[in-house]
């Protein structure tokens, strides 16, 4: 599998607070990585560094030739409630805005682009909402629209920041079905607070609690989580062999570097 990008010794500070320290990881084609960790542990910081929204304090992110256009080839679904839902814009205009990029700043009304938007609307079964104002949608519908915006430019890497908050169970179920399908054509980086739900779908897991521990499998035991110093509540799980894990700190978390690195 071709490598898409490599994160090398990434450190991000906000003033005196260290949000992320010496994180290294690489993302390859067809990867499906679940990013887990406690709130404030640095998950969003990692995403924003990859997306170019945050300047790293130290270290670097190297985009390989496969992501040649840099960040324009990355699709991004931000956290819910990140936008003004009274903004006067329609569903299809939001999706169309996802086509905008470095090489496409003005003319977006071409037939090819409109066709592409139509296709995305169909794929996410929201064609009937095309002309609706964004503020009149339900949570699940809105997430679909933002997923559409992330997908419309055919990204090689899809980054999702907690896509399953504020949505109903039915959409959550459908979302993972859609993601499985998309994963055939693109790498996916998915942030979630709920390791139980995602571990049934992802291929590997990155635990972030200031430090990053990459775990090259979707099966992770409470002991391993503790070893990664990644205190996280497992809420639900399918056929993953582990039980409910409370939050507890390990005495020597850093002795347990994972051999898969």
């Amino acid at each position, binding site marked *: 599998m071709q490598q898409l990008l490599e994160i090398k010794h990434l450190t991000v500070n906000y003033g005196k607070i260290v949000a992320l320290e010496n994180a290294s990881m690489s993302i390859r084609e067809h990867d499906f990585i679940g990013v887990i960790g406690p709130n404030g542990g640095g998950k969003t910081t990692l995403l924003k560094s990859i*997306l170019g929204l945050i300047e790293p304090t130290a270290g670097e992110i190297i985009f390989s030739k496969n992501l040649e256009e840099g960040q324009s080839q990355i699709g991004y679904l931000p956290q819910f409630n990140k936008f003004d839902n009274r903004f*006067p*814009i329609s569903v299809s205009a939001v999706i169309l805005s996802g086509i*905008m990029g470095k090489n496409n700043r003005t003319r977006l009304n071409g037939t090819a682009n409109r066709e592409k938007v139509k296709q995305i609307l169909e794929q996410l079964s929201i064609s009937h909402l095309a002309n609706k104002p964004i503020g009149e949608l339900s949570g699940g519908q809105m997430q679909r629209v933002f997923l559409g915006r992330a997908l419309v430019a055919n990204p090689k890497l899809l980054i999702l920041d907690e896509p399953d908050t504020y949505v109903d169970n039915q959409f959550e179920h459908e979302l993972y079905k859609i993601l499985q399908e998309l994963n055939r054509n693109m790498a996916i980086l998915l942030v979630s607070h709920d390791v139980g739900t995602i571990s049934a779908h992802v291929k590997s897991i990155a635990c972030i609690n200031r430090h990053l521990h990459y775990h090259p499998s979707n099966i992770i035991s409470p002991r391993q989580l503790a070893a990664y110093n990644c205190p996280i509540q497992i809420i639900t799980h399918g056929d993953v062999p582990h039980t409910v894990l409370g939050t507890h700190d390990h005495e020597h978390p850093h002795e347990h570097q994972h051999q898969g690195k």
Partner: protein
Amino acid sequence: MIELFNYDFFRNALLAALLASIACGIIGTYIVSRRLVFIGGGITHASFGGIGIAYYLGLNPLLGAAVFAVLSAFGINYFSSSGKIRQDSSIAIWWSLGMALGIIFIALTPGYAPNLMSFLFGSILTVTRADLFYMALITLATIMLFTRYFRLILTISFDEEYAITRNLPVHFFNYLLMALSALVIVISIRISGVILVLSLLTLPQSTANLFSKNFKTIMWASIILGFIGMISGLYLSYYTNLPSGATIILVLTAFFGLGKVLSLFRQ
């Protein structure tokens, strides 16, 4: 009614109303959608400082207003984005600083400042050919920018952070649109004055927003509503002998009230 067209000042006023309604219709929709109305208030009042200084130095007051408006727009943007001062505080500082400077320099200017009231409350009937030239220039720039970069402006306005991830020139356009908004405010000061100008940029938009949640539709509707409001306000002020700027604002407010009632019936 028609005989008014024989007067130069009236033809100028009509042209000024047309240009201002186009510029305010476009920029106002941008300002309202992005919730920048309070920043607009800061810019408007800060520009009064420029008017005062230009008076004192014997320069064109609109030029002084333009310089101060753009400077305060950038100032508000800069101080609040650097995180040192909260945005609303930053706006308040520029707002009152501009007014204070304006009052002091007008007081320092020898003799009586006859046009002071017209800058505070507007006087569309005293618009000059030179004013019209500047208005046309800025209106044209606004039309061109929004025609060529409509999608880009919409994308940035709706979700700035997302636009950055797409490598779009977000900061450049933020400043460009800030500067253009400041200039549109300045040319509109001729219509309704420093104190009332903000409503030219928000009333037609709020009325249009009652019926549409589409950026482009709101823009067009605001231009039309703004123009009708300014013309009927102008006529009304002529026949009632009331101040034109304030009459225009009252007409636009009446439109909003009417729209609100209509929209309630529609539901």
